[in-house]
Each structure stands twice: as C-alpha cells, then as structure tokens.
C-alpha cells in the first residue's frame, strides 16, 4: 500500500515537473543551455597554437575585412599596439596580444583573443530575448534584431569577450566573433582569420579532430607545450582551444573559470521558480484562512462573554 502510494506521488511529482520543465525549455535550441547537452558531434572549433604565432596580426586584418569593420587607428602591421594588453571591441572582434615569457629567453608569446564559443555558453543562457545562440555548427551567434541591449550577456561571459557599440545612439548592438558563421555553413568554408594565418597558428576544423591534433602535438613535443589544452574543459568546454609553452594564466587566459558549464549556476534557481509559483498561492491562501478563522473565533469568544 505504502509503496504504491509513494509510486503514485512520485509519478505525480514527475509529471508536474515534466510539465514545468517543458514550459521552461520550450525552445529546443535553448534547451541546451538548461540541460546537460553533449553537443552536436560534428560541431566545429578552432585551435590556436601560441607556440606558432608570430604576432603578424594578419588574422586581425582578415577579420576586419570579412566583417566590414571600420579601419583601425594604426595599421595592422604596426607593432606599436603591443605594449597594451588589448581586448576585442565593437570595431575589432579579434586582437593579438604580446606577452612576456621569461622561460623563452626574451622572445615574447603572442595570443589571438576573441569569443571562446563555449560549449554551453553563459551568454546564451543569460539572454532574455534569445538573441544569442549556440549553433549546431559550434559557433555562438547573435541576432541583432531582437537584442534590447541589457548587456547581461557581457557580464555573464566568464571571459568578458563581448563588446557593445556604446557610441551608436540608434542601433547599439553586441559585437563579437561569430566564427564567420556565414562562411562555415558553406561546404569547405573556413573563418577569415584561420585562412589568413601564414603559419597556421590558428586552424579550423571539427572540435573532436582539433582535440586529437592538440593531444598529438603535446605528446610529440612534451618540452614545447604545457601539458594542457585550454578550452577542453574550461567553463564546461569551449569551441576555441589553445596550446601554449607558458602557463595559460601568463597569456591572459583566466584560471578561475572552473569546469562547470555556466548555465548550471542558475539552473537550481530557475527550477525553484515553479515551486514558488505553485506553492506560494497555496501557502498564503492557507495562512489567510487561518488568520480569518482566528479572527472569527476571537469574535465568537467575545460574543460568548457578552452573553
């Protein structure tokens, strides 16, 4: 008897939960932000091997042209930009930074910086209008036509890689690398930066294959590389992967992003919402009934005393 009752309650709870989850994740693309989603097997990624990068900034120029961005203040070949650690901006979706690397006896390390195209992006889960999406191809893309400009995504991004065109009063928008989405959906298409790189420091391919390549590079040359592929697990895994000679922290890649996919940080809270939605009215109606009854009893007592 007790077992069957428990079963019944479990069933009822599960059914109620399923209905609520369904409502919460009614959009199939966004569902990946709420649930543990293994990802599309053939999704693309990028691999940047910082040991190969020579700091020529050809990728910056290619990105600028491919995305019709405004011309830069200094020519792309000008190395005088390097003393400052730059960040991608609304007008430059990728930048190459120079880092000191004492272990290499004075020769610096260069790293290309841009959106990491997380496997389960914080920005996608944070967007209240679904303007940001993780595509099956692996790119994290942005739809300017629905964005209201709350900029929650920019704060949510563990790498702080999103930019906003603050100076545009009429059509301000979030700007970031979209892995040249329009190119990669076509057969044989490669993002502009990867195709422009003269030394193939940045390459494009299926993420699973890039991981294999990265692993074999480390294995074949263990003294050249730190034994870690940055992005394999960081923030739940990123589409952009990095190899390095020096610790990743030294080349501006944060060590504090953990391995947990970011949408999980808010999942428990989101799941508590239906509990309040259903539970509170019942609870407060009950409390109200109690206080009414108490009032009535008090009144009756008074009447009784009078008699």
């Amino acid at each position, binding site marked *: 008897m007790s077992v069957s009752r428990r079963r019944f309650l479990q069933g009822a709870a599960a059914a109620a939960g399923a209905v609520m989850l369904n*409502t*919460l*994740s*009614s*959009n199939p693309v*966004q569902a990946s*932000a*709420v649930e543990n989603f293994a990802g599309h097997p053939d999704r693309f990624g990028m691999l940047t091997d910082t040991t190969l990068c020579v700091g020529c900034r050809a990728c910056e120029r290619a990105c600028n042209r491919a995305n019709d961005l405004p011309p830069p203040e200094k020519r792309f070949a000008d190395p005088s930009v390097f003393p400052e650690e730059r*960040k991608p*901006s*609304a007008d430059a979706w990728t930048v190459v930074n120079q880092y000191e690397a004492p272990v290499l006896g004075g020769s610096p390390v260069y790293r290309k910086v841009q959106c990491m195209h997380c496997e389960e992006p*914080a920005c*996608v*889960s*944070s967007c*209240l*209008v*679904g303007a940001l999406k993780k595509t099956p191809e692996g790119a994290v893309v942005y739809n300017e036509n*629905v*964005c*209201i*400009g*709350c*900029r*929650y995504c*920019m*704060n*949510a991004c*563990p790498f*702080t890689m*999103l*930019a*906003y065109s*603050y*100076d*545009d*009063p*009429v*059509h301000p928008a979030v700007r970031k690398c979209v892995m040249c989405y329009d190119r990669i959906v076509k057969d044989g298409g490669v993002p502009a930066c990867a195709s422009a790189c003269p030394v193939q420091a940045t390459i494009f391919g299926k993420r699973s294959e890039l991981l294999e390549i990265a692993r074999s590079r480390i294995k074949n040359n263990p003294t050249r590389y730190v034994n870690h592929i940055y992005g394999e697990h960081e923030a739940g895994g990123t589409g952009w992967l990095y190899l390095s000679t020096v610790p990743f922290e030294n080349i501006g890649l*944060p060590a*504090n*992003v*953990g391995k947990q996919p*970011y949408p999980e*940080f*808010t999942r428990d*809270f*989101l799941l508590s*919402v239906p509990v*309040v*939605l259903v539970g*509170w*009215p019942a609870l*407060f*109606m009950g*409390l*109200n009934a109690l*206080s*009414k009854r*108490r009032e009535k009893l008090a009144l009756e007592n008074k009447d009784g005393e009078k008699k």
Partner: protein
Amino acid sequence: MSVNYRGLIRPGAAIAGGERSWIREKIFLGQSTGEYLKGLITPFNIIAALIFWVGIPVMVIRFAEGLAATTNLTDSNPWGIWIGFDMMSGVALAAGGYVIASAVYIFGLKEYRPVARAAVLTGFLGYLLAVIGLLFDLGRPWRLPYPMFVSLGVTSVLFLVAWHVALYLTTQFVEFSPAVFEWLGWKRWRRWAIRIALGATIFGVMLSTLHQSALGALFLLMPGKLHPLWYSPLIPVFFFVSSVAAGMSMVVIESMLSHRIFLNHDDAEHSKKLENITFGLGKAASLVLFTYFWLKIIGVMHSNTWSYIGTPLGNWFLVEILGFVLLPSLLFLYATRRRSVGLVRFTAVITVIGIIMNRLNMSMIAFRWDMPDRYVPAWSEILITVTILTFGLVLFKWIVNRLPVLEPHPEYGDDH
C-alpha cells in the same frame, strides 16, 4: 500642505465651482488657477524645477548621442549605477509594498492598515522609477516589450525579472487602485478593486519573492567576477531576505516623513497608532536582519572564504555585515525594548543605507574587484539618477496631496 489636503476632502465644494469644478477640485486642490500657481512656488518645487532644468537636457543627450556620450560604461563594466542603484537598490527599497500588503491582507494584521496605502504607493513608485532608470540604461529601450511578446529567452534569470517586474507593477497598480477610484468617485470600480485585493496581494507576494531573489540570482552567473566574500549560491536568498528588512525600514522612514510633512494636525491618537506600527516594524525588522546576518555568515562558511577577511575588501565586507546588518538588528531590538521611536527610525535609516551599500557592493565595488579598469559613474549618470528620483518625489507629493493615501477618504472610512 495639510490645508491643501483638506481642500480635497471638503465635500460639497464642487457644486460652487460650476463647470470648472472637476479640475479645480481634483487637480488644483480646490483653489482657483491663480491661487494654485502661486502656491506652487515653494522651496521644494524650486529645487525640483532646477534639477529638471539641468537633468532633462542631459536625458535628451543620452538618447540623441548614445550611451558612450553620457556614461562611463565599458565592455568590461557594462552595468553602472542605473542598474546598481536605480534597479538593484530601488527594487529592494520598494519592498515595503508587498511586506505591508501581505501583513494586512494575508496575515490579517489590521493594525498596519494606516500605512498600507502609502507603502503600496511607495512600492509602486519605486518600481516605476527602476523601470524608468532602465529605459536610460537599455541600448534599445523601445524594445522593452520584446522579452514578453517578441522573442522569449526562457532560460534567462533576467527573463523572469522582466516578466515579474512588469506583472508586479500592474499588480501594485491594482492594489493601489481603490485610492484612485475613491479620488475619482467611481464607487462600483472601487468595490471590484477591493474584492480582488487578497488575490492581488498573494499574486504580488509570489512575484516579489521571485524577482527580489532573481535580481540576486543574476549574479550567480558571475562567480569569477564578484568578490568571493559576496559571491555565494545563497545570493537569491540574501536578496529576498534583505529586501524584507529594507521594505520594513522604508515604511518606518516614509510614514514618519509623511506624518511630519503632509499631516500637520496634532492628532494624538494617530501619533500613538503610528508609534505602535513603528515598534512593530522595528521588532520584525530586527528579527529579519538577524536572520539575514546569519545567512551571510553561513554563506561565507559554505564557500570557506574567511581568508579574504583580512584584505581591504574583506574589511569592507565586515563593515557591511557588522555595521549595517548586525548592529541595526540589535539596535532595533534595544529601541523597541526601550520604547524609543526615535531610535527605531534612526535604525531604519542605517538599515536602508546598509541595503543600498550591499547592492552597490554587489554590482560595482566588489564586482570585478581584482581588475585594473574599475567603473566610476559619470556625472551625467548620477545627474540622470537624481532627476529620476526627483521626479518620483514630485509624483509622490502630487498623489499624496490629492488621493486618500495617508488618511482614509471621509466617504469610505477605513474599510479599504
């Protein structure tokens, strides 16, 4: 001012005014146009007019030239005081609306009825100001209804906030509407509005629980950016519990100010009632703050971040939770024991400062604390915030002088 208020409640005066009587009675407080305009020249109005005179052009520049021209927002610090102060603090301080409404309409604590309407009005205006602030902050504010009707991002905590704030603003208007209908003399409408009061209140408490905590839950996605002493999985609970204390303290302060400014009759009975309400709220706030204090301690224990206490920001954290949470909790208790109304009110001010401090710490001071590029608001951001606040005060004053908020309407009595 009280003369003005009595102008409203003098029945029968409308007949004498003839055709212009409605405007004269309802808007001009029973005075002629000339009298009314002359009466507008008060220190308060002059200061407000000056602020509008400076602030409104800057508001125009914000829209004409964009966020870059008027704010210090950057790609690394995309949220400034319009979010940290107007939204985060504004919504917390507006919690008095649901706290008092639930005490009166759900728990049947009728002794709080005299402050209920003012609390709901303050709550409504608080949310209204937060939303107005948001209009300046959003890149494309004309798309405000998008999360409701155009493109629904259901996995976002901010999606909840948007829906709940919109619904709650409507709910608070419904809760306040009996006063509007009494002012307009629409008796049937008023009856209906009162009938749905309980439902509206419960709906309001539900929405408030969710969006007060959801405002905190926004920060759950920023574990690497918020200082470890402030970051905790319990942030939603912190925000909800502290909003209750903030709401109670705001009602204490607001009822004192309204009593002094708007009602200048020496009604001993009214003063006595207000004192008892103040003590009740003080006692309750003491308990809520004490709970909040221990929750904060549990939060630090849970994340085991004690090692940060010795750092400058750690000291600042101690100032917040000892000086502005634990201390007011104990002061409230002491003041209610000693029956000192003044001390309860003083403590309420400390509590409110503490909650604002917390919201600013969360969104600015302890946010991206270890980064070189810190956000400091531009003068134009502060000016726009001050202008919005002034607008709120003017609106509050305008409504309180006309509608039966602080005192029951003579025709309807106390049955709201």
